[in-house]
């Protein structure tokens, strides 16, 4: 029996990580079109999750479980999508800047982007400027996310942007910044492309910029 992509979307909405992963595998084995699996299964589910979250019918623990299911499905599907040249969300590298140990906000942002179909590389906390530059060179991400929760570490985000310029890779990547003391104004000042006030809204903003 062919995999029911509608059911797959339902399982994703219900946050069934293992089931979604298995079903994706099954669908691939059945020879279904990877683009169809993505659009009619995974993304169809995540779209509902997004709407329900905005309507306050779903909450962070549920949304991030669905995001995890999305990530699990994408792990199976990504190689097929790449091979078929289908359009999909790219890679995001994210980390907390040097001197800053705040972890959880950045992790939630990463999970949210995973839910949007991105491949997320989470570098960790307290990262040297060079680590960001090297990661951009290595992973060639569409997005670089930096987190700073301290006024004292915020300037490091500007330093990273300058280092990206010096390394000649600034134009390859959209830079997104966030964290409690960070503002839209500050993001502009240091030459970042996107300011994200919270995990959910930053996904929308990033999509807008990347699709523009």
């Amino acid at each position, binding site marked *: 029996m062919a995999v029911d992509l509608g059911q797959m979307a339902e399982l994703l909405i219900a946050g069934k990580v293992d089931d979604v992963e298995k079903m994706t595998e099954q669908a691939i084995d059945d020879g279904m079109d990877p683009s169809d699996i993505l659009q009619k299964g995974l993304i169809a589910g995540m779209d509902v999750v997004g709407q329900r979250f905005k309507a*306050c019918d779903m*909450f*962070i*623990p549920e949304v991030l479980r669905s995001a995890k299911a999305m990530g699990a499905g994408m792990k199976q599907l990504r190689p097929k999508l790449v091979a078929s040249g289908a359009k999909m969300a790219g890679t995001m590298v994210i980390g907390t800047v040097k*001197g800053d*140990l705040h*972890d*959880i*906000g950045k992790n*939630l942002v990463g999970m949210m982007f995973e839910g949007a179909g991105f491949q997320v590389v989470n570098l960790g906390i307290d990262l040297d400027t060079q680590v960001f530059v090297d990661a951009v060179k290595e992973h060639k991400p569409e997005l670089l996310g930096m987190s700073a929760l*301290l*006024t*004292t*570490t915020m*300037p490091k985000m500007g330093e990273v942007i300058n280092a990206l310029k010096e390394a000649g890779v600034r134009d390859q990547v959209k830079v997104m910044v966030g964290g*409690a*003391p960070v503002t839209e104004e500050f993001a502009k000042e240091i030459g970042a492309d996107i300011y994200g006030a*919270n*995990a959910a809204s930053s996904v929308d903003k990033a999509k807008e910029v990347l699709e523009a």
Partner: protein
Amino acid sequence: MKSVMPDMQPMNQTVQETPVFQVLTEDQIEQIYFSALEVLERVGSRVHHDEALELFRSSGDAVVGDDKRVRVTTSLVERALKSYPRKITLKGRNGVRSVALQKDHVYFGTGSDLPFTYDRKTGERRRTQYKDIVDAARIVDYLPNFDFFMSHGIVGDAPNPLTYDRHQFMAMLEGCTKPYVVTSVDGEGLEDLWKMACLFQGGENEFRLNPMFVAYIEPISPLTNDRTAVEKLLFAAEKGIPAMYTPCPSSGATAPATIAGMLVQSLAETLLAIALCYLKRPGMPLIMGGVTTVMDMRTTTYSYGAPEMALASAANTDISKWLNLIMFSTGGCSDAKVLDEQAAIESTLSNLTAFLSGANLVHDVGYIDSGVNASLESLVMNNEIIGMVRQVGKGIKTDEAHLALKVIDEVGPGGEFVTHDHTYEHWKEWFLPKLMDRSDWETWNAEGAKTMLDRVNDETQRILDEHEPQPIDDNTRKELKKIIDDADKRHSK
């Protein structure tokens, strides 16, 4: 001795004069405590500090894993627990030993390091500066219901992020003469702040007897101890500086989504520090802490206004009393973006529960915007709230004079009490509102129809215009400046 025949003779009864508020039974506390010990034996806590790891290793009472995970025996924890002082008295730079941290003594104070300030003149949120700290300090110096001062804001205009703490402490010293709780960049920063404080207390040993501040230090939930935090802790232990190691878990994100689970985890985090400080120097004045709250599941905000924060904090205080530890707790704070009705509601709830639970240092009073935004007005409003809370805490006296049988008899049916001696004597035991309006409609209109917020704003301005704290003498000022300048020089290279 002449004995007065009482109106009524109580026999064999326990007179309860203050409200009783406890959110955990002793059995529940034991369950949480034993679970925390189990976490330390089974899961352990990661420690990123070589000396600390060596202390654990050579204790024979801990196992240090390759991943720097330290697992600690109950035997060590229980020996350590017995070594901590049950009383610490703080002395302000005004020379008054005003904060006696001991069981059920409750003191209120600000929080620290708010990156933004709500500017009441422009109605905008802007970055906090040195002058804002001095202003907050002056307000706290003036307000009678505040007992200690944390910086409220962060000095955003300091020359160097690595030395901002010295400048911040200077601003605190300038504006406020009450005891402090201080945040610092690292061990070296704490050492400088301690040197600055010793100038006022008359040296290192005097500081031990009359500490002017408590050092604020935090682990990273879950179960992680970073290098700078441990560095500060060990320095505090070495010098006998009162310090707290206060977990800041958010239930559902960096701790279990159940309050009991969060309490277990944060107690394990505390007990690790209890063991470590004991190995470094038994008896150092360590204080238990905890900003225990939930992460809001709609916004991801670390909530400063959730009822779960108030409840979990009260539970933590129950645990601290059972462990004979002094407690640093949280209250008077809010998730509201500006000082509004939400801020008043949330501040009231957490102030009340913190007070009734008997926490010793209740901090973060005046925080708005979930610990991001500073409001001087919020301090002024909270002063009134705390006054009311303290009144509730006074409870009801039921001795002869307070039962007032004689008075009831004298006045009799249909009389009045207003002009009676008894009233003249006792009404002053009541709370006297300063900002709460109880006038009639007519009068209220005639006086400008001012809302609570208007009155709070006026009072804030009046204090800022009028209150000058006791100044720091020129000599001390010079020495303070030298410590700060030296730090700036060391770090400018």
